[in-house]
């Protein structure tokens, strides 16, 4: 579409509009009683165009520049991230082993003793941690269970997080 004729038309429209304003005359009075109908139809037509515009908007997708990231060096793993992909049982085993080692180190008990403490859940004050590693004899308090229902992360993940926090507590116990 060449803009030239449109430019002229636009300019003409503006000039006519100004003239009409100055003269304070309405060209539509010519139509008499039908002027309102004409205006109504015209207006509704315009509104219809607006609706089409909105519909059009849904159909087309804008696209933006997506620069490729350049900040990172060679992608290497951070130790521990792979634990998220381990099956639960394996991760629980690792956690148990870590607790046993920590108990032996910190509380000077034997390996059998340590395992017994894990079974009973007496190695830590944290109920969720004790329950998740224990034999099932340890109960989780209701409040913790309810909180588990509301929270976004899975129960297993929360349990692991509690165990690791309890482990941290246990190990710093030894340095105090």
């Amino acid at each position: 579409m060449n803009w030239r004729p449109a430019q002229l038309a636009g300019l003409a429209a503006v000039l006519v509009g100004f003239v009409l304003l100055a003269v304070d005359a309405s060209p539509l009075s010519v139509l008499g009683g039908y002027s309102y109908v004409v205006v109504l139809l015209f207006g509704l037509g315009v509104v219809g165009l607006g609706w089409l515009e909105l519909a059009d908007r849904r159909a087309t997708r804008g696209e933006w520049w997506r620069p490729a990231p350049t900040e990172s060096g060679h992608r290497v793993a951070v130790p521990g991230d792979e634990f998220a992909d381990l099956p639960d049982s394996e991760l629980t085993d690792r956690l148990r082993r870590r607790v046993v080692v920590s108990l032996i180190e910190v509380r000077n008990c034997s390996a059998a003793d340590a395992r017994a403490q894990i079974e009973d859940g007496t190695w830590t004050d944290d109920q969720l941690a004790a329950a998740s590693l224990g034999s099932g004899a340890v109960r989780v308090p209701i409040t913790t269970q309810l909180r588990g229902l509301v929270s976004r992360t899975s129960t297993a993940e929360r349990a692991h997080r509690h165990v690791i926090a309890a482990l941290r507590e246990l190990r710093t116990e030894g340095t105090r």
Partner: protein
Amino acid sequence: MTASGDDRRSRSDRPRADEGSDARVVDHATGHWTGVGAVAFVFGGLGIVLREPGLLLAGVVGAVFAGYARSAEPLAVRESGEPTLSIRRQLDDDAPDPGDEVTVTVEIRNEGAGVLTDVRVVDGVPPALDVTDDTPRHGAVLRPGNGVTYAYTVTATRGEHDWQPAQVTVADPSGAIERETTVDAQTTLSCSLPALSSEQLPLRGLTTQYVGRVDTDEGGSGVEFFSTREYRSSDPLSRIDWRRHAKTGELGTLEYRQERAATVMLVIDTRQAAYRAPEPGAYHAVERSVDAANRIFAALLDTGDRVGVTTFGPASEDCWLSPGTGDEHRAHGRALLNSHPALSPIPPEEGLYETIRDDRREQLKDRQVTQLRRRLPPDTQVFVLSPCCDDYVPTVARRLDAYGHLVTVVSPDPTTDDTPYRELAHMERTDRLDALRGQGVRVLDWRGGESFAAALARAQARWSA
């Protein structure tokens, strides 16, 4: 550069062949303003129907923006064949040591005649370098002839690193059209292991100087008392421990040992499991191991020991430098550490033996250790450099120790405690190193952020205690 009446939506994302260069120019119709026209039509139309001039005027607002957006044209990034944007980079250190931080200062300049109100840049940092401070991304408003400067920091790793073209987008003032292009400037960072002088290497006591018992009748320097054993009738009188005889009446024979240059082998863990760092792109443990190896190699050569280097991991058969001394040997060692493919900063795709069945894997791992042991000269002291993020290397260390080699484990620490799982990995590693210490293996735990000298001082205090 003109709109020429095409429907902008169909023009979007069409690469344009550019005269005179291979810089790709891509236009994006962002659709940033889609929907504003609806305001104009709906308000304007209803204003007409209801005879409310207010609504009509409100519609004008929408109409103006719609027209403004629809007439948007991509800005010129090339005028008469010349790019209108130029880039210049400056490195504050062209040839840093591995692990050093280098600040990159970037200047973007508008060489064209028009104002560019919306310039967005992402600098082409070399794929091997990690940005550790600030960001290579920047937004600027550039008048003709003006430029803007910004800076960011990278950590150097071994090798030659070339900057890639910066990705640049220039958007029109309304934001409706983005023109994407690239701007380039030749920039290179060369990083290699430094040649260390002896002042920089306070590495005494790394090796046990006294290896092996030696029967010697000579006295003199370099001979040290070692122990007493039961007297045998063939022993010379000069070797009888008379002091003990005076005290207890028993006869014993003194044994001496002679100072001898140590033979040392540095074994660097280059398995996939050793490529670990506290953040996904950061300076990883293999790089730190090579750094430590460089220091230990130079220091031990300085004290007259014979040092060699090898790796443990993929392609380790061809990475072998037998223990030796001398300037030529020193140069060989440095060259090997700098650029041998087995010590590449790029992590291998798969773990060693990952594609092999479990039972065969154990066999092959065993074979690696046996081969290593076979090639080691007897009485060699071994330094194993590994982050110890899994149980394999500690097992190797223990085996070598059992075979009679004195083993020291130098372990750069790539663990952090950002997240619970990472903290667990940190705890496991700590316990691993403690277990090694408990079995009589010397361990040097080189934490992140501390200098090697500091880590060594700490370890030596522990060893001599």
